């Protein structure tokens, strides 16, 4: 690992050259109304590195909301052709908790059967991460996320006084930055660490993350599930904005001409009412409370037990998006602690 430094101005000029070179599509955080989103950059000046959180996490580039898996001629099963649409992309400014989510998604799509539709997009991506510079009212990332996102980042940026400290974590990151006007880093590790931790989280999980799987195991029956579940509109916003939710459905789309059809993968979520319905209509999670519990159990127990990492990265997007104001894990665990 190499640590260098670049002025913000030089970094933006460098990005403009990268955008113009079109070796890969450059994606970054841009302002949209009063919110922020990941979007393709036409100019580096659109990039906003000082943001609280984006509406959607960068997962949309690896598991798009809608993605073609197969093409075919309707009624001709011999015509099925697998499709894997991807192009080289560079994403600039991913917060460390979103990187941690990508780390978990990588595990989910590579362990067991390898899902190349996801993995190929990941292989074709270069990730430039950073640490939050703005508070966000529902963020509790430091309670649940270690720095595992650094395992997937190619480059990490830390802003100090108009400069960016550039940590190069992979050969791919090294290659990407070869024409950048980086200079020798003269900040101490302590100064860098302090800058990374400059912005504190507004929220904190009331439990140590390591004990949550067992804690949930002991709280399968608890009034919290009904208390929050009955307020749920089953709209699915919390799972759609979640950086670690990767459940999907598959649908058929046929052209009006009937000449070509596609099987598309679309985002789905366990908070939607019919998620666990089987062919004869039986719903294995009929009650809102059982769906509410499943989501928290998946993040706090099932995924940690399967992959060794907490299934929630504390970004706070679910709490931000929830109409009923019930989705935030901090709120759920606080209620459980207050109602033992």
């Amino acid at each position, binding site marked *: 690992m190499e640590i260098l430094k670049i002025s913000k101005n030089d970094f933006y000029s460098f990005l403009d050259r990268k955008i113009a070179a079109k070796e890969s599509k450059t994606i970054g955080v841009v302002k949209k109304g009063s919110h922020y989103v990941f979007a393709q950059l036409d100019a580096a000046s659109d990039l906003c590195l000082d943001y609280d959180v984006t509406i959607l996490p960068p997962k949309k580039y690896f598991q798009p909301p809608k993605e073609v898996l197969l093409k075919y001629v309707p*009624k*001709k099963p011999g015509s099925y*052709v697998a499709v894997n649409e991807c192009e080289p992309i560079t994403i600039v400014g991913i917060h460390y908790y979103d990187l941690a989510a990508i780390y978990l998604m990588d595990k989910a799509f590579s362990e067991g059967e390898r899902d190349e539709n996801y993995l190929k997009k990941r292989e074709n991506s270069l990730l430039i991460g950073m640490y939050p510079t703005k508070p966000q009212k529902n963020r509790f990332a430091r309670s649940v996320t270690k720095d595992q996102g650094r395992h997937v980042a190619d480059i990490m940026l830390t802003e100090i006084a108009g400069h960016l400290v550039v940590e190069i974590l992979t050969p791919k990151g090294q290659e990407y930055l070869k024409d950048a006007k980086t200079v020798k880093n003269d900040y101490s590790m302590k100064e860098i660490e302090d800058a990374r931790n400059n912005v504190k989280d507004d929220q904190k999980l009331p439990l140590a993350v390591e004990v949550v799987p067992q804690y949930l195991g002991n709280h399968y029956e608890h009034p919290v599930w009904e208390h929050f579940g009955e307020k749920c509109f089953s709209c699915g916003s919390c799972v759609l904005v979640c950086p670690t939710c990767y459940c999907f*459905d*598959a649908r058929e789309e046929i052209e009006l001409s009937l000449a070509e059809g596609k*099987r598309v993968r679309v985002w789905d979520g366990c908070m939607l009412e019919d998620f666990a319905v089987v062919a004869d209509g039986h719903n*294995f999670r009929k009650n809102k409370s059982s769906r509410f519990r499943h989501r928290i159990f998946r993040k706090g*127990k099932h995924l940690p037990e399967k992959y060794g990492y907490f299934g929630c990265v504390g970004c706070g997007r679910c709490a931000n998006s929830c109409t009923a104001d019930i989705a935030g894990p901090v709120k759920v665990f606080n209620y459980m602690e207050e109602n033992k």
Partner: protein
Amino acid sequence: MCENCGCTETNQKDDVQKNSIYLPEVAKLTQKKKMTPFDSFFEFQLKDRPLGHLPGQFAEISVPGIGEAPISISSAPSEANTFEMVIRNVGSVTNAIHSMEPGECVGVRGPFGTSFPMNNLKGKNLLFVTGGIGLVPARSAILYAMEHRKDYKDFFILFGCKDPGQRLFTDEIENWKKRDDVIFHETVDRKENFPWDGNVGVITTLLPKVGKVDPKETYAIIVGPPVMYKFVIMGLRDLEFPDDHIIVSLERRMKCGVGKCGHCQMDNKYVCQDGPVFYYDDIKHLKEAI
């Protein structure tokens, strides 16, 4: 393979085709037979390989333009390229399959999931407890055990369905009844207006007919609708069956078959990969299992 399915030689070549876990291969419908007003028997044939399944596994069947659905495999493992399914017409994919005629093709992915542990059951008595279309996956193990009859001791099959009009594999059942090395009992929940002089009552009413078996020397295999499991397990526990001698096959929405899409999750298990066949002992602590 056939003129109508659109097979092309180039389909299987590039890496995207080779590495996709979502690409179905072609199977031709070779036989079709109506079994009940809503269930039909289908035999499919893969182009150049046997399906290679084990008893109790399932496959994803695709109809291009309609969708894909997980279907239990009903035949015993075979060297032949054919395999059998009984499909209930309940949704758009199954409806499309029902409207097909022999010679037409479907897409197939699989086989997926765990199987009935037939090797572990060697030397023991077998007790199949099946309800409705639960007989369909159970049949793959029943036929397997019949083919390897010497490997097992006493062999009981209990079958229950809602009414006599919903009985499946009626010809085969007549043969099973005639066999002196298989003890078969069946019941219906209601006679309705059918001519029926057999048992009437829920599946658990057949358990006493099994008579005295040593539960420690017997494995019970339960396959049926969700509502059936608790009652049958209670009945088996009354007969002092140990929990690790009860094997169940569970239904969930197994959309992708490869442990990714999340639909079939049951507590921390993916039924499509960790199941559908489980020892009851391994899942009885799971809150969402039964």
